[in-house]
């Protein structure tokens, strides 16, 4: 973090961005988008046995406007896709997305006409968690990786929008 002690222990210097990011990563508020069995594992991760509160993420928000981490836990079908897109758009910047489990990451076993083949077709995804469903440890690991992104000021929602590419060559 680049914290320095000067003149004994009376002054601390640090970059403001580092302090803000440290505060941000230690109080990520997740939005639980649980649509299938991964949602049960996510609930388990949030509950007392695994206790996401240890990472400062116990304040689960059911309003996207109050959340900064979207955990998509479960199968997303075509009919749910616009809902997920709108939820993501309603979250305020900066925001991060975890695709939890095989279904959210790539459609999983559902190679059929109803299921979105990975939510990255709709929204940007910062972290993919493999598993069907992933264990709570896997979700917590991805959460700590997200914390690393937050601390270093990275995230797909922070990236500049890619320049529009003309679809017809001129």
């Amino acid at each position, binding site marked *: 973090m680049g914290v320095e002690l000067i003149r004994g222990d009376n002054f601390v210097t640090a970059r403001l961005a580092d302090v803000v990011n440290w505060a941000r990563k230690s109080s990520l508020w997740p939005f639980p988008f649980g649509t299938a069995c991964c949602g049960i594992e996510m609930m388990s991760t949030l509950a007392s046995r695994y206790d996401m509160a240890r990472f400062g993420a116990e304040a689960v928000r059911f309003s996207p406007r109050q959340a900064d981490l979207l955990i998509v836990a479960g199968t997303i079908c*075509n*009919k749910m*896709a*616009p809902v997920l*897109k709108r939820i993501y758009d309603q979250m305020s910047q900066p925001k991060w997305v975890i695709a939890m489990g095989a279904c959210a990451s790539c459609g999983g076993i559902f*190679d*059929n*006409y*109803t299921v*979105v*083949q990975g939510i990255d*077709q*709709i929204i940007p995804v910062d972290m993919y968690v493999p598993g069907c469903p992933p264990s709570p440890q896997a979700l917590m690991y991805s959460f700590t990786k997200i914390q690393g992104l937050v601390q270093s000021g990275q995230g797909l929602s922070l990236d500049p929008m890619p320049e529009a590419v003309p679809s017809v060559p001129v």
Partner: protein
Amino acid sequence: MNSAAISAKVAGAIPGACVEALEFQGQTTLQVRRESLKEVLAFLRDDPDILMNQLLDVTAVDYPARADRFDVVYILASIREDGLAPVRVRIKTRIPDGAALPSVTDLWRSADWGERECFDMFGIRFEGHPNLKRILNPDNFYGYPLRKTFPLRGERDPAFLEYKETEPA
């Protein structure tokens, strides 16, 4: 009441309606002609000895090679007030692709969603249904997924991801 007794009653009340009666593993199935389907269903509901007062499901089976392509299946149950075990009976009728059946929503309200699912997944129309639109797939979906000729992966049209609910007509 077994299949023979039920089909005998149906045949007595509506001559020529019942094509075949089957009893298999204790399950009763009647195959009826399409023209007299609704008459038979109304009779089964109202006859005091049979009294099929509940429609459990409306579904269909696709036989793509057959001229009358679809079996439409009505699963009826009789919830008895005398404490006896409920009696179930399945009514099957065959229709070709593109044909329509009369809706039975006026006999059982539970036919509403079953017929909509049948329409959504097989493309079978039910005349007289109050709100015959897709129930499971998005409104802008095209094709009928439970037909055996439907490709498993579907069209994967990106427009499906932009689904907006349409107002009922």
